[in-house]
């Protein structure tokens, strides 16, 4: 408290990237920091929930099975079958993991006490992107063969030869640099910016309430705004999980397809 008051007297320090850094809860290892523990927690939550809900697999589902199957069915239909086509089955475990893992970690930003979207630490989106990257390249090489795949990527058929001077570097960059980079950055930046925005309203509101009488009103307004934005973020978090999975699915679909 005294620190807060000191901060209030000494003027408002806006939230910065420093707010995204956590000291280890115990010991000295980075493995004991809040985001790492939350990632571990997400694995436990997701695995437990879906294993329990899938355990019986009855034709007439229980409530928890209905919910789990509903989420699985959503990924299966709109992210798997409709994007990849008839070969979607073998990618379902991967797509399902991507979606549930990201969704849970994103929604951690909304859940009281946790209130931190893990994916705002770029290392986590990057690790998922590495899997996506490996999966869609591996699928393409396996499906089309290494040389035809490279030829397909670098020298897109049906294009006049001189165009390759421009097209080949672009295509190469798209497949090997831009795709993983945008996947990672999109998820990271959305979560980072969303959390920062909430911090601005919450810390700002806190600062205003600690200040003069009239400013308290704005402080309350600022808190109210942070609640509205929390719900907005809740939607963004779900949307980003969906987009990441959708793009993964689209890249896989491109690898499975024979034509561009």
């Amino acid at each position, binding site marked *: 408290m005294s*620190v807060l008051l000191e901060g209030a007297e000494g003027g408002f320090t806006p*939230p910065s*990237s*420093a*707010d*995204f*850094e*956590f*000291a280890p809860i115990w010991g000295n290892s*980075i*493995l004991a920091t*809040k*985001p*790492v523990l939350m*990632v*571990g927690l*997400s*694995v436990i939550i*997701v*695995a437990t929930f*879906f*294993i329990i*809900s*899938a*355990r019986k*697999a*009855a*034709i007439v*589902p229980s409530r928890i*099975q209905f919910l*789990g*199957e509903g989420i*699985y*069915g959503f990924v*299966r239909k709109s992210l798997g079958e409709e994007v990849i086509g008839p070969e979607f*089955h073998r990618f*379902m*475990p*991967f797509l*399902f*993991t991507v979606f*549930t*893992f990201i969704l849970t970690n994103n929604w951690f930003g909304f859940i009281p006490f946790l209130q931190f979207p893990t994916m*705002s*630490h*770029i*290392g*986590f*989106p*990057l*690790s*998922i992107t*590495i*899997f996506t990257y490996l999966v869609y390249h591996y699928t393409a090489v396996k499906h089309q063969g290494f040389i035809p795949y490279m030829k397909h990527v670098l020298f897109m058929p049906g294009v006049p030869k001189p165009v390759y001077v421009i097209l080949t570097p672009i295509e190469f960059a798209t497949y090997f640099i831009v795709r993983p980079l945008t996947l990672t950055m999109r998820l*990271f930046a959305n979560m*980072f910016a969303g959390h920062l925005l909430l911090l601005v309203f*919450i*810390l700002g509101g*806190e600062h205003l309430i600690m200040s003069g009488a009239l400013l308290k009103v704005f402080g309350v307004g600022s808190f109210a705004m942070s609640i509205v934005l929390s719900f907005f973020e809740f939607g963004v978090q779900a949307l980003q999980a969906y987009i990441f999975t959708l793009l993964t699915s689209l890249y896989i679909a491109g690898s499975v397809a024979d034509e561009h």
Partner: protein
Amino acid sequence: MNSRYVVLAAEGHSPVIPQTAEIIVGLIAFSILFILLRKFAVPKFEAAYQARTEAIQGGMEKAEKAQREAEAALANYKAQLAEARGEAQKLRDEARAEGAAIIEQMRNTAQDEANRITASARAAIEAERQQALNSLTQEVGTIATNLASKIVGEALDDQARQSRVVERFLADLEAGKK
């Protein structure tokens, strides 16, 4: 919000530079989740999905079978109905034909009877006429004989007498006729 005040100030870490430890944690966490979901969740969901699809398909097949059966039964009923109707029609036609035959037969019988009666009546009349003619012939002979004897008995001397006799005779004739 404690974190805000317990910053690892020494690091001054940029948020876009990934931390190797976190990448490794992410890779491991994702792998564990992937293995668990692939082994325990996805196959069960797929199995449930499959079972449900089959159950629905089975139900539909059953319904289709029932419908086919119902249609067959309907066709059967219709055929039977048509047959019954045809039979009834046939019976009616037969009855009508029979009735017509009976009427025709009766009409013929009546005609014959009428002819017979007419013929017998005609024969009776003829016989009577013949009898009358015979008796008349006899009577005319007698009357003529009577008249001749009277004429001869009266001695026909004058005209007056003569005519009187004739008139009397005629009157007698009239009276005798009655």
